[in-house]
């Protein structure tokens, strides 16, 4: 029982890492319908920004977190303006391929500049709590808490604020949004700024949680976060959270019962099964197009 609970906690904390990355993924997707393949790499750059903020500029942890979010928000806006904006009216795959290109660029440029070697990210002071024979650490709580809080805030922003409505309007029909008086460019920039800042927050939190940053650290979580976002229903913010947690718990479960070599296969099999039953993800509505 204690082991089961412990594994559940492990799964949830892994899942909240996925969720944290998936939130930004899904938000950008929801607004600009772009699978921003480079999202995982912005997460990596965010982690490095935090690393240098702490190591080189000697900032305290939370200041470093904010600094890294700010840096990545700017990066997100610049990246959108240079690489995605010219492709707004192009076929969607074109932007997708640019995203792949950006992802390669970020990874390899980091390898080129900083080197492929992993760097130790300074950890926060570790506090472990024992609850019912189960160990929970402050980092785990921090990550889960941040993910949940961000999910709630984001969901609220997108669904209930004026900016959120503008974002959704832009996602549905840019011309019509302009006719409402919405500044489409700014709205999209804002979306990328938030999405990238979220990625950075994820990068710094996860970097300190595991104590490591390296140029390829975004690849796997980026992919898993993408899977999580799709699982929950891509574009739907609470879906990213649900998807992330399911994926994390599923992976933990598969490893715990002794099939760790098949972990990823099982995770994907679960994804596919869920999609077959719910083709638009768990929270997605599968509306047949009205003709």
């Amino acid at each position, binding site marked *: 029982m204690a*082991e089961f609970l*412990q*594994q559940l906690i*492990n*799964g949830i*904390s*892994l899942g909240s*890492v996925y969720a944290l990355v998936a939130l930004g993924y899904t938000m950008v997707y929801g607004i600009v319908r772009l699978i921003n393949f480079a999202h995982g790499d912005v997460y990596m750059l965010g982690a490095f920004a935090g690393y240098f903020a702490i190591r080189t500029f000697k900032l305290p942890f939370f200041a470093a977190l904010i600094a890294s979010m700010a840096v990545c928000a700017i990066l997100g806006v610049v990246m959108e303006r240079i690489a995605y904006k010219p492709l707004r009216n192009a076929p969607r795959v074109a932007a997708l391929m640019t995203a792949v290109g950006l992802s390669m660029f970020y990874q*390899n440029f980091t*390898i080129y500049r900083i*080197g*492929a*070697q*992993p*760097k*130790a990210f300074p*950890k926060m002071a*570790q506090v*472990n709590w024992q609850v019912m024979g189960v*160990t929970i*650490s402050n980092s785990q709580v921090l990550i889960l808490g941040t993910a949940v809080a961000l999910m709630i805030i984001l969901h609220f922003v997108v669904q209930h604020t004026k900016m959120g409505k503008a974002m959704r309007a832009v996602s549905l029909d840019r011309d019509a949004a302009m006719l409402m008086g919405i500044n489409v460019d700014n709205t999209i920039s804002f979306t990328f700024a938030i999405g990238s800042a979220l990625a950075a927050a994820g990068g710094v939190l*996860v970097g300190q949680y*595991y*104590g*490591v940053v*390296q*140029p*390829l*650290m975004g*690849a*796997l*979580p980026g992919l898993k976060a993408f899977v999580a976002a799709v699982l929950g229903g891509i574009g739907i913010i609470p879906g990213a959270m649900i998807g992330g947690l399911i994926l994390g718990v599923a*992976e*933990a479960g598969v*490893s*715990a019962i*002794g099939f*760790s*070599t098949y*972990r*990823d296969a099982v995770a994907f099999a679960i994804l596919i099964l869920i999609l077959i039953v719910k083709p638009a993800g768990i929270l997605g509505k599968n509306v047949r197009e009205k003709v």
Partner: protein
Amino acid sequence: GTKPAEPAAPAAGEQPAAEGDIIIGGILPMTGAIATFGQSSKKGVDLLVEQVNAQGGVLGRKVVFVAEDTKSTQADSATAIQKLIQQDKVVAVVGEVASSNSLAAGPIAQDAKVPMVSGSSTNPAVTEVGDYIFRAAFIDPFQGAVMANFASKDLKAVKAAIMTDANSDYSIGLGNVFKEVFTANGGSIVSEVSFVSGDTDFNTILTTVKNAKPDVVFVPSYYDTVGLILNQAKNNVGFPAEVKFLGGDGWDSPALFELAGDAADGHYFSNHYSPDVDSPEVKAFIDAYQAKYNEVPDALAALAYDAANMILKGIEKAGTTEGPALRDAIAAIELNAVTGKIKLNEKRDPVKSAVVIIVEDQKQKYFTTVNP
């Protein structure tokens, strides 16, 4: 549109080879999944070439090292070595790092009669490809056995757990040998789990392992992953200090201590050499490396340095760069290398002793030497 590729311009900073130079090729994963190993390896070879040229080169000729990226893939390894042999007319090749890539490149070197020396490919099959294929590292069965014997004999362990990287044959190979030898010694394997390279969260499998109550945990993987595993084992999962983690040469990097902090203390791994070992080669290498790159070399750098050295010493001994002669010279080589005494057996694998290292105060400390 089937125009053949033009030879690429050399990268900035590299000197083009001139008439009469000895050109050594390198196929290394400079990008892709294991770029970190490729980069260390290249630094090792670059250092050696610089040292050798400073002393007048080999056979009075300047040595030029041209490295080609393999993107950490097999197909690219095959093409890269083909390019080196055909376009650059290299006399020998250093690489690849990973066994699976060396296995893709090996047949091409063999067919072209160009010796290929891998620094770190530890799968026995690599040199079975043919008599032009050599290596500087010891092979997996040896290293796995070293740690299994160490566990049962020195640590008196009876219950072991094994954690392997499912994507790495190196890791799985060592795990298998360890299992075989350890059970033959009368021990039992209480838990076997795996992860994949690139993972960062090991809490789940560590929890599983911990609950199996092993005396030792064998983690034959690379320092980037091992650092995280040790860290999480101690800080998140709360492994008791009596449970010792054991590993192989893959642990050898200063980054391990950076990533694991004090969580690495008290654990053991096998290695080709120890910086503690009072050998002049080791000391000279570490000093030169630190002077050039301002960092402590890892095992990959040392092995690639040795691999390239085997080639250069071979050329010197053969007095020529002709394939067959060079092959014979390398096969007969005896070298006091950084990673130990290299003398090849008939399978072209070095018969080297291994050292067991213990981590103390976030530093490597020589523990014992195990002879083959």
